């Protein structure tokens, strides 16, 4: 498989080299042709900065980038022709109709005149905007603008598509539609580089993911391989009545519990030995005259890997029940 993107020692410092802010720190990675490559990381990790450097919008402080085998610093024009860009903000012209937005983009991206109308028609139909094509984009909903923005990024049939937070802020149906489209584009041969903080989306879509934190790439692998690195830590989700929500501290103090986090009316208990923990939970409930409504064991998710790597405690999306346990997962060996 050929390499579509190759990055070597890529670095970006905003401001002066000695006193500026280091946003991207000597990162290296490759994206193969035909891959869906996910770029994950918390806010400020360097995701968008990296993507802007790859799309020629930002000049790297140092390092090299090859797009489709060509040095980006020397052959920008070639890269610009094969790249499609869908930034986080739906950058459509609100004063133009959906149709005119596509016609304008087709023109500046050098789509042959004969093909512009048919491509625009196909895209508008694919994105469910055909009926609204003559309406000004300012009257579109957020989801419609997002779809139009993606359509504008696709009008020149790019070989490499950059998607920045493609589904963030969309309703479930729109997000699902766009995910389906990403899969379809990829099946048709488009290489996709997607920046996202939606871990489950990356898990479902990406062939490989890179996790970037503090400007450095912490790991690159397939989602399944990444999950296997934290396989030893599993979790049990337990729901109890009455007032099961109030027993976090007690459950978190059970032997073998690494961390406990509240999930609605349930508690998620992280442990290396679920089989040993299960009877203790039963005993805990019996001793306090609690009824167990549900009890499930879960394998580690990509989110667990992500939190592990980016320094968040497992289950740290909610306040930990036992403050003493807050940093425990960081001590574990991967």
């Amino acid at each position: 498989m050929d390499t579509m993107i190759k990055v070597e020692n890529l670095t970006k410092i905003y401001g002066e080299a000695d006193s500026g802010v280091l946003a991207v720190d000597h990162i290296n990675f490759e994206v193969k042709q035909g891959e869906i490559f996910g770029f994950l990381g918390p806010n400020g990790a360097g995701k968008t900065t990296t993507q802007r450097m790859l799309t020629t919008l930002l000049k790297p402080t140092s390092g090299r980038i090859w797009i489709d085998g060509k040095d980006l610093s020397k052959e920008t024009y070639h890269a610009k022709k094969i790249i499609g860009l869908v930034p986080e903000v739906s950058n459509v012209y609100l004063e133009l109709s959906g149709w005119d937005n596509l016609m304008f983009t087709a023109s500046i991206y050098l789509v042959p005149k004969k093909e512009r109308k048919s491509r625009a028609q196909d895209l508008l139909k694919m994105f469910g905007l055909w009926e609204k094509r003559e309406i000004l984009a300012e009257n579109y909903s957020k989801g419609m603008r997002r779809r139009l923005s993606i359509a504008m990024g696709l009008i020149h049939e790019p070989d490499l598509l950059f998607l920045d937070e493609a589904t963030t802020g969309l309703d479930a149906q729109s997000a699902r539609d766009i995910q389906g489209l990403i899969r379809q584009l990829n099946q048709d041969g488009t290489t996709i580089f997607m920046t996202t903080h939606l871990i489950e989306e990356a898990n479902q879509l990406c062939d490989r993911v890179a996790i970037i934190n503090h400007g450095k790439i912490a790991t690159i692998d397939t989602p399944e391989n990444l999950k296997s690195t934290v396989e030893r830590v599993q979790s049990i989700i337990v729901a109890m009545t009455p007032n099961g929500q109030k027993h976090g501290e007690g459950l978190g103090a059970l032997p073998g519990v690494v961390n406990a986090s509240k999930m609605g009316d349930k508690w998620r208990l992280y442990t290396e030995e679920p089989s040993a923990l299960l009877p203790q939970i039963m005993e805990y409930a019996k001793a306090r005259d609690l009824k167990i409504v549900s009890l499930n064991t879960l394998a580690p998710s990509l989110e667990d890997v992500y939190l592990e790597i980016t320094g968040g405690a497992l289950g740290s999306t909610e306040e930990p029940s036992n403050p003493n346990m807050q940093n425990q997962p960081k001590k574990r060996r991967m």
Partner: protein
Amino acid sequence: MIKQKLTRIKNEINQAWTVSIKDVRVYYLTPGMIMFGFLMPFFMFFSYSVGSNQGASEGLARLLAMTSFFTAGAAGPFIIPTERRIGTYDRLLAAPMSLLTLLLGKTVTGAIFAMAVSLLALGAGLLIFGASIDQPLMAVAGIIFSAFTFSSLGLIFGSIPTTKPGDVQMPSTLLRWGLLFISGVFVPLSQIAPSLRWISYLSPLTYAQDLMNHAVVGSGNISPWISGGILFISGILFLLPSIRMHHQARIKGV
């Protein structure tokens, strides 16, 4: 190879034109453009002309110079920061065209706006105030040259790496007002002390005003060829700082 280069040039010209047409459709009727590009020159003109003893033709020459100066220079400082703010500028920068093409497209946007408003001013001067034009072709050439030069000047301010049009409007307006007072628009060049006149010669507006004086009234202080040449060269030179600032923006990440 030559055919490829010719195709590329043809493509770039088409892209520049596409950018201009889009800007015309999207921005010409926005409040910022109407205020700074359309109303401002007329307000300025009437505030300085009411009560003065100038003839209709002298007034028309002044109005034409001021219109191209204010109107052409209004587009860049308004459009580029606005597009940076809403993210549409990234789409243009990422498109397969050179930065110069994009900047030329933006220059044409301001120039067309200035030419259209100048045409209105011309019509009003001729039909309502009874002015006459001594050399119509020179007037047309003067409007075109001035429009491109001042649009290119406005682009310098539009290229300041910011996402707020307000950050750009203030320095842009300050410079334009400053140039207005030293350029023989309100005080004819011949009445400025020779020892101070060199300051006037630093301003491109001086040459636009003198060219309009030649075209409309039939007399001026500088050869129209020199004025036209200086306007043309200034227009090209004004693109250089814009290019430099765009490169800086690419480093700063604005």
